[in-house]
């Protein structure tokens, strides 16, 4: 009887602090690592939240032909330097230029290609 509040306290602490300790990617962050690590650079992290404040979905997914599927567009550095995909904006004109390798290649080693913080972690998996 006397023990029980303490045990409950322990459970509550875990529940309360859990979300602060567990790593939690921002919803809709896309990681792309189809070639990056194999070619000696860190995986790419593309943040949807940051870009959708500035651009509608169709700017990228219709006008720039970026596919709605992580890793399926076939992005390469050659195409970016050529002004395609990210390179249509990251050209020193609309956004900072392609020389800022670290800003895109910012992922931890071993990241898998995919959309993060989404249904993989909280959504239909539970349904």
């Amino acid at each position, binding site marked *: 009887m006397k023990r029980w509040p303490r045990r409950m306290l322990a459970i509550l602490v875990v529940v309360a602090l859990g979300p602060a300790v567990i790593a939690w990617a921002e919803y809709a*962050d896309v990681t792309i690592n189809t070639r990056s690590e194999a070619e000696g650079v860190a995986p790419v992290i593309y943040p949807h939240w940051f870009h*959708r404040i500035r651009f509608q979905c169709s700017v990228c997914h219709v006008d720039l032909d970026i596919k709605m599927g992580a890793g399926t567009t076939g992005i390469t550095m050659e195409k970016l330097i050529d002004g395609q995909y990210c390179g249509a904006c990251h050209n020193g004109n609309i956004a900072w230029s392609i020389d800022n390798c670290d800003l895109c290649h910012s992922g931890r080693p071993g990241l898998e290609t995919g959309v993060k913080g989404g249904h993989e972690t909280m*959504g239909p998996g539970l349904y």
Partner: protein
Amino acid sequence: MSPIRAISLVIVLTVFASAVLGAGNWQPLKNDGLHDPENPAIEILQEPGEALGVLVPDSAGNKVDWVRSLQEGLIEPRPSLDGDEEPNIRDTTVLMKNTYPLFYVRFTHKPHTQWMSCEACHDRIFVPQVDANPINMGKILEGEYCGLCHGAVSFPLTECNRCHNTNPATLGREEAATGEGTQ
């Protein structure tokens, strides 16, 4: 009140508040499990909480009500690279009734066309004709139709009632009969 009880109460309230309001728990980039804390970019990139904390709060996904944030003018996502394209807003709705036992789904074009052009959906995801698409919940959960965006980038599929938003009992008789709603 004993200290343990007091602490428990505070924690319960915190859990409750964070669950209900969902506010303020954006992860700093360095411990989001994706970014490499050793990478110099971590000092330069914007923290999600800084950008998202000033928008209309919500309880799921990015913890931002993107539709309201746009409609209230807090953000102005450009419709094209140079931003000078005419917006093409459609104001019709489509009622979808194969939802038993949940409420009907009323799909609204307006918020969607404020976020994207018609080509984002037509015809690559949906044929632009009422009841012409064999949508069901199983396919949505597998990432087809509505589930291509919802559950990945737009609000997650756990928010059943945002899509299943129309009680059949409150529909006008005529609308219930034709299954077609406008405006």
